[in-house]
């Protein structure tokens, strides 16, 4: 087996990425390719009265303008039962699909559900002609009253995610607790803003579709296209070799994919869609605004007696998304009395979706801010409070953890940071003009796993190719899977090739929820283990005797060109254990006393995420999560104009993500953790946990520095003046 901390191999696709050789979806320039440009709705609610396409059609190079007025009816989306008599009605029932907006098949009618809805597309011979054509399309509407303010409709929350969780009597326990915190916390709309905009190149050949898509979930896109366009799944070939960041926003099939494929079919040419940065803010998901009440009741020793976590988040009627901000509530502290629920309020806003650590990220902001408030109310060290309430078993169901090293994370992080030297008094630490603040918070994210398949083929020259459909958005999948294969087969990693990002390869799940390493890794491990055994069997030897040279020797000896094995990895039906990654952040902020911009001076973050396959790529993923957490804490907010129903700062200058200058010292501690129960390879997944807890750790440090408790993100200068 591999060591708990895998070697820091350089990325196997590194050379391609530093030479411009990595081809992303929109970089497949096909013969005779046309370009499509979207037209977005400009009202939040109503119907389209007219679409004047005359000027657009006259414009140079425009081939077609497509909208509900001339688009054919598409089949039902996966997850939506087809109505009798509708195309696709004969198909078997589908599982929940990944179509982002099951109630809004593009161009199916004249209804407008939010500003920015894709209501028409202009196809032209060049990118400039298409963009100009889209500007020339004139749309008139009949507006209907829109629901735009979450506060106004807060009584109409719906528990779409069926999230209600109760344990004991939370209200009674809270009422009788001697020390209490009861506060409202808010997180704003945020956008993923991957560097690469969502983009596709779609090409039809008869009733076969080839689609280059920047996707986190190619097999679901395949299924969605199959259903919508009424062709067998086998006719749909999705390719996604390199994805320029996603963070959840490329997990669902968004309307532009359907529209681009539709357009390619209608104009009978390959079509490229490359959304503009502005368009990304409207129809490709966002982390929705939340408002959360956290009520904590404790005894004077700090033992939590009651925890209530409730509130609301924005969603809409055309998607199925609900922000599950109470998911961490059930996993983080030992509390006997709990009530947690995360309803949605449906509004005329674009569809939200999962964004890095959905649920946990906003949820832990509220919980961990409240814990800090409780520590001050108790006059207790915030770290000590967390130790007092450490959950030795999963609070939700009492199951034992497959492994948990949170206490080690606290201890090692605190030690490296120097937490014991903290003067708890707010405004007590200074450096020149700056107030210095130290804060901490816990982090957690579940260790998910889904079925996945892989095929391993060894050639007589001793080289091995791994085939599995999965994705590479920068997490290092291609690298760590190559390492895992090499380790399992006992060969040098240079002899492994990893093929992925293609629906003709064995199926894998969505690359999201920190589950790629666990899911795909279990399949790769299984396939390689089986391959090794098969080769041993061919020669009638003990698999334990197989070494790097055995493959060449045995295949040559038996005149075999290649030998292969496939493995379909499935998580067990019943998990006897609770599986969860944990961590802890320690933050120092510096805040000028007069001009209180918050700067994160240094962070120490310790994580226990099971086995780490590659110390280098893992460290980068942790950094990435943490830096997005710094953005969430201090910079990121998509402003929404409640009168006009539109997001406003819809560009990359006024929607601010951290720049290089915003990031100073970050120390990552990877606490070694061996876990034989979580899955065959002992990994828990680390893509999300980095961001969880960063915002509250910073907010807590800001309180320590200034004495001001900021309960609504981001922590901008005006909130500290």
């Amino acid at each position, binding site marked *: 087996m591999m060591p708990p901390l895998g070697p820091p191999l350089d990325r196997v696709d590194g050379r391609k990425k530093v030479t411009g050789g990595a081809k992303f979806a929109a970089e497949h320039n096909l013969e005779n390719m046309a370009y499509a440009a979207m037209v977005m709705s*400009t009202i939040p609610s109503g119907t389209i009265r007219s679409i004047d396409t005359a000027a657009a059609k006259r414009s*140079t190079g425009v081939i077609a303008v497509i909208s509900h007025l001339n688009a054919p009816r598409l089949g039902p989306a996966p997850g939506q039962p087809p109505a009798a008599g509708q195309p696709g009605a004969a198909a078997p029932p589908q599982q929940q699909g990944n179509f982002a907006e099951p109630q809004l098949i593009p161009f199916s009618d004249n209804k407008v559900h939010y500003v920015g809805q894709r209501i028409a597309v202009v196809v032209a011979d060049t990118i*400039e002609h298409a*963009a*100009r054509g889209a*500007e020339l399309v004139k749309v008139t509407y009949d507006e209907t009253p829109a629901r735009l303010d979450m506060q106004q409709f807060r009584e109409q929350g719906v528990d779409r995610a069926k999230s209600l969780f109760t344990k004991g009597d939370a209200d009674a326990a809270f009422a009788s607790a001697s020390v209490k915190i009861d506060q409202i916390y808010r997180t704003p709309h945020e956008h993923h803003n991957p560097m690469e905009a969502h983009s596709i190149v779609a090409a039809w050949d008869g009733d076969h579709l080839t689609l280059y898509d920047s996707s986190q979930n190619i097999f679901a896109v395949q299924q969605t296209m199959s259903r919508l366009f009424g062709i067998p799944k086998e006719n749909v070939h999705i390719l996604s070799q390199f994805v320029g960041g996603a963070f959840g926003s490329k997990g669902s099939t968004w309307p532009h994919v359907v529209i681009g494929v539709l357009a390619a079919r209608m104009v009978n040419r390959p079509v490229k869609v490359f959304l503009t940065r*502005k368009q990304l803010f409207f129809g490709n998901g966002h982390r929705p605004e939340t408002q959360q009440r956290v009520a904590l009741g404790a005894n004077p020793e700090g033992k939590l007696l009651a925890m209530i976590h409730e509130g609301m988040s924005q969603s809409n009627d055309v998607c199925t998304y609900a922000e599950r901000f109470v998911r961490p509530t059930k996993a983080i502290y030992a509390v006997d009395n709990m009530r947690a629920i995360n309803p949605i309020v449906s509004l005329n806003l674009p569809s939200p979706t999962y964004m890095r650590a959905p649920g946990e990220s906003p949820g832990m902001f509220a919980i961990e801010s409240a814990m800090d408030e409780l520590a001050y109310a108790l006059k207790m060290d915030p770290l000590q409070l967390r130790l007092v309430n450490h959950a030795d078993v999963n609070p939700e169901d009492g199951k034992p953890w497959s492994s948990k090293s949170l206490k080690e994370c606290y201890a090692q992080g605190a030690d490296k940071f120097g937490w014991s030297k903290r003067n708890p008094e707010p405004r007590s630490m200074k450096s020149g003009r700056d107030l210095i603040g130290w804060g901490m918070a816990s982090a957690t994210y579940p260790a998910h796993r889904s079925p996945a398949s892989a095929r391993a083929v060894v050639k007589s020259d001793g080289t091995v190719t791994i085939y599995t459909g999965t994705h590479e958005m920068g997490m290092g999948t291609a690298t760590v899977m190559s390492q895992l294969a090499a380790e399992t087969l006992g060969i040098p990693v240079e002899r492994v090739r990893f093929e992925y990002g293609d629906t003709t390869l064995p199926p894998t799940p969505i690359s999201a929820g920190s589950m790629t390493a666990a899911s795909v890794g279990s399949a790769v491990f299984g396939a390689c283990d089986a391959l090794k055994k098969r080769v041993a069997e061919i020669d009638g030897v003990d698999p334990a005797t197989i070494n790097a040279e055995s493959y060449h020797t045995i295949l040559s000896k038996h005149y075999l060109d290649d030998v292969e094995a496939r493995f379909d990895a499935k998580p067990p039906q019943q998990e006897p254990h609770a599986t969860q990654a944990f961590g802890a952040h320690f933050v120092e902020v510096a805040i000028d006393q*007069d*001009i209180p*911009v918050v*700067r994160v001076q240094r962070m120490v973050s310790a994580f226990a995420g099971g086995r780490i396959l590659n110390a280098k790529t893992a460290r980068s993923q942790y950094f990435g999560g943490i830096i997005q957490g710094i953005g969430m804490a*201090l*910079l990121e907010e998509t*402003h*929404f*104009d409640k*009168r*006009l129903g*539109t997001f*406003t*700062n*819809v*560009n990359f*200058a*006024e929607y*601010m993500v*951290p*720049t*290089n*200058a*915003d990031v100073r010292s970050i120390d990552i501690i990877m606490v070694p953790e061996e876990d034989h129960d979580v899955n065959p390879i002992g990994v828990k997944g680390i893509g999300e946990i980095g961001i969880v807890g960063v915002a509250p750790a910073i907010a807590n440090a800001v309180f320590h520095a200034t004495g001001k408790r900021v309960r609504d993100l981001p922590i*901008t*200068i*005006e909130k500290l*003046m």
Partner: protein
Amino acid sequence: MQPFDFVREHEVSTAVKAGSRDGAKFIAGGTNLVDLMKCDVEHPTHVVDINAVPLSKVEQVPGGVRIGALVRMSDLAVHPLIVKNFPAISQSLLVSASPQIRNMASIGGNLMQRTRCPYFRELTWTPCNKRNPGSGCSAIEGENRLHAILGTSDACIATHPSDLAVAVAALDGVLTLRGPKGERQVNATDFHLLPGNTPHIEHDLKHGEMITSLFIPDGPHAKRSSYLKIRDRASFEFALTAAAVGLDLDGSLIRSARVAFGGVGTKPWRAKFAEAALGGQRATPDVFRAAAEAEMKSAVAHRQNAYKIELMKRTLVRALSDLAGGVA
């Protein structure tokens, strides 16, 4: 983007002629014009490339420095004359935009750059008096955290985005303009216009005219000057508030001062009231604060930008304190 024809001119005279045609616009760096053309906000039918016009010199001239309109921001920022005699100009450039943009953008173009107001730039279907005169202002009752508090009107509260223009306004810059009718000079402080009822008219540059150079006079205020910019993000962001300050000191006595504000005005905001409050006073924090109060009396806040009033005051106090150094 609307179609246009493209010509490259090599002389001021031919450029001006080409630029005088209806619908013509000059392009230098392109960092603002191309962006706004993509936004469907700028619609030139003729684009006149002036990059080959010889206007890229920085020269010591009697009484000051003359800067060609096509000098790039990055070059001006590190020019020895500027670093030595006009630190506020250099500093304002180095905290502008990004290294790449500074390599492209010209000094003339920088002074001409247009507001970042999202209703103007991105949300082209919404009312905006600057983009579509008479349609109304979406920002006054809308999302206006970044909007102006000085020089606003009922028609527009859009912030002028330039950093350089603020330093130029403080240091009494003078622009030379060349048009079909010849050459003329305009003080930088008169070049940008208040929105009033005509927010679409942003500056005193007639159609066909181009900026050919910028003169900045030498002087004690220029030599002892600085630029302080406050922003949310550590880099690559427009100002929340900014102060360009210049002091002529006699010991701790302020003989006279030059002050301009950025991030808060509908134009680069020369702070005459602040200057008046500083002149003849000792350089002390109380005097600085009083100067800030004097200037900000006329500030008008909207729903989300009231913080800028106090922040601007503190920004000025900090800028002056740092500039006065040991004497304050």
